């Protein structure tokens, strides 16, 4: 089974609204990362949160991490049409050499 699973699988909101996506994982992690993928493009790193951190901000992005619940959320505030993309969480386990990606949340921002 996958290490990271995003919820919801798809989200459609109006421009200007906030978008929240969640990621759950099964095993203790070193860090958790969020990536964005625009249609037909490669993934782009957005933000990393380490296991001893609870919240991080980057511009309009806010990421939280709850290690007791093994979950993370990505909040995009004041969404824009350009935020339309798929968002993936990826986890790095302690001592692991690889990232494990979830299946992504498809976010659509309607003008």
């Amino acid at each position, binding site marked *: 089974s996958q290490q990271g699973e995003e919820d919801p699988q798809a989200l459609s909101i109006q421009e200007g609204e906030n978008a929240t996506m969640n990621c759950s994982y099964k095993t203790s992690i070193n860090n958790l990362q969020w990536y964005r993928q625009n249609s037909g*493009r*490669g993934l782009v790193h957005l933000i*990393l949160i380490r296991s001893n951190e609870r919240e991080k901000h980057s511009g309009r992005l806010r990421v939280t991490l709850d290690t007791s619940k093994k979950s993370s959320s990505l909040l995009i505030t004041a969404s824009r049409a350009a935020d339309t993309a798929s968002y993936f969480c990826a986890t790095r386990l302690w001592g692991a*050499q690889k*990232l494990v990606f979830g299946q992504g949340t498809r976010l659509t921002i309607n003008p």
Partner: protein
Amino acid sequence: DTAVSQTPKYLVTQMGNDKSIKCEQNLGHDTMYWYKQDSKKFLKIMFSYNNKELIINETVPNRFSPKSPDKAHLNLHINSLELGDSAVYFCASSDLREATGQTDTQYFGPGTRLTVL
């Protein structure tokens, strides 16, 4: 300047053929990866090389063979292509020495869409 580049961007071929995808990174990273993204967008790692040495080899048919001539290049050769190989293949790179640090960022190429007919 393109950080991680892949060629070709699209590859359409018949079942049974052999094909290669090339990847190059100019970021000076020591580690490169191949991922497969299926039609449901699930991204799964296939291989990873660190300084030309294979460090990750997931459960992948041995028809897939990666080759790293130097640490800036990682190519993927696929023999006897099958319908199920149709997917988007992504190359990525990172600096593994920073994996436990604050960065631990993977940089992805634009992908190669492989269609097997």
